């Protein structure tokens, strides 16, 4: 049903999980994954349209919140977001350590 990812520009669909709010990506099996490496890679056109329609239905079915497609570059079979904002989301958190990790970093540096 799903084509293997080609190298180069493509799309994946992202959203936030309704219950815990965390970043998720539409996966190959119609589920949602936290790992963009497991995301379903879509091409513009009917492929993306069907993905968007499915994601909208998942929004309506209260699985995820406000899904939207993002631009990615497939490198070695793995989709990498084009926009920096989406790179940060795909990395599951800020670009800097926080909380106790930050305290450990600061303690180690002094």
């Amino acid at each position, binding site marked *: 049903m799903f084509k293997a990812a080609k190298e180069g520009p493509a799309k994946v669909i992202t959203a*936030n999980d309704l*219950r*815990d*709010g965390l970043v998720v990506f539409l996966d190959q099996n119609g589920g949602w994954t936290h790992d963009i490496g497991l995301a379903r890679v879509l091409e513009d056109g009917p492929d993306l349209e069907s993905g968007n329609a499915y994601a909208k239905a998942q929004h309506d079915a209260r699985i995820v919140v406000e899904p939207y497609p993002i631009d990615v570059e497939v490198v070695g079979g793995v989709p990498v977001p084009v926009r920096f*904002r989406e790179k940060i*989301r795909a990395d599951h958190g800020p670009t*800097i350590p*926080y909380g106790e990790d*930050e305290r450990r970093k*600061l303690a180690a540096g002094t």
Partner: protein
Amino acid sequence: MYRYDEFDRAFVTERVAQFRGQVERRLSGEISEDQFKPLRLQNGVYLQLHAYMLRIAIPYGTLNPAQLRMLAFIARKYDRGYGHFTTRQNLQFHWPALKDIPDILGHLASVEMHAIQTSGNCIRNVTADHFAGAAADEVVDPRPYAEILRQWSSLHPEFIFLPRKFKIAVTGSERDRAAIQVHDIGLHAKRDADGNLGFAYYVGGGLGRTPMIGHLINDFVPVEDLLSYTEAVLRVYNLFGRRDNKYKARIKILVHETGAAEIKRQVEEEWARIRHGALALPDEEIRRIEAYFALPGLSPRPARSIVLERARAADAALATWIGQNTRPHKVSGHALVTVSLKPIGGTPGDATAEQMELLADLAERYSHGEARVSHEQNIILPHVALDDLPAAYEALAAQNLATANAGLVTDIIACPGLDYCALANARSIPIAQRIAERFADQARQQEVGDLKIKISGCINACGHHHVGHIGILGVEKKGEEFYQITLGGSADEHATVGEIVGPGFSYDDVVDAVEKVVDTYLKVRESRAEDFLAAYRRLGAAPFKEALYGAA
């Protein structure tokens, strides 16, 4: 401190139950996201880049130890072990799960806290001078009047759907530490020649994409008219503020387009109608609220503390911290302590659960059970005896809370930026961290002196960049982060919007640019007594432009 009365308790408890039902219905599918979103926003729940965010109101920034401990408990149990203190004197948790938020709100209600009116187009949490009730230079303690405004504005049915959000700040000192002139309404509490209490009203200030300084529309509104005059301002805004364009909907645009004189006329016409009605504040009610904020029983002590003098002589780091992070208290032998949430290389405004618990302990032990959040994202212990300063310092230092940088170049305001925020275009936190690391040397920071750097990751200006002595605005340009520098801004009693100095800088280059600005200041200042802002006001942008971009 103010305690909830039966009305506060009832409406907060009811609201928690109501929101619990709304979350249940959202999760079970009875209501859609479109229906749920305005409801969650009315309870301080946002959906950000990585997760939900819960913004908790801290009225005029005042916290007691039980509240701090509850915030620490919530951070551990429901979040990732920390919280973020904001420029609105609030606290944000960045990782709560939606399903847990009703429980979190229930815990908050048990310590008289909530998240009501921390979002949406309503009157937001009222902010005040973080040194209120303690600063030696204070004329009037602004907190009782901030509390009266809180009670009046909480769930005020007429002002739940304003054209846009509405922020009120109150100060009671000539030296404005509450940035009142960049609020929708800024109140300066003062006394007239006969000792009567009243308020100067600044209306139509604000930051965001159209920064404006508020207009003084009445220099002295008597205290009994505080609510009627404020309600008159809100009514004029509610009626005439623009609802057709979100970006032109704040009262600053209305004041700008209508003119301050005409706004004053409209406000005072409405005020004349309602002034002697139900909103006239009875004297006994004012006295009742004031009594909650009476100075705790601080006994005057000798102005010099032998304990402190000995400790200072023995410990240079302590001496530096005392010089930088304490301020004179109205009661002899005491000090106001600024606990810096700006460790070099850390996230401005963040505190871990453990740090919050320490602050609770220290507030209890040394500050008569009070702590404050400042809009500069630090914590204040307002009533510490000089004799207790060495012990407080030692405890703070053990938790990396004793950075001696209050008011210095590394005491940077930064919004969460693109690391957390769905609206941001660029990161703020790592810029603040890199600038702080560049200026980490204590002697160099002190040589530079008072310098406020403020960083926003988008035009909405949560990091107050327009009023930074050096302001930094992150933008996205061709997919890259880019940073515009403004100079000469100020949020004090001589509030000024900074001027863009020239073309922006890349993520890599912006720290060098800031250093050039600071080095230029050191070269051109007349003496150490002339701080950055004074030098900028004397010389203008020219020497800084030349340093950054070469001769024109």
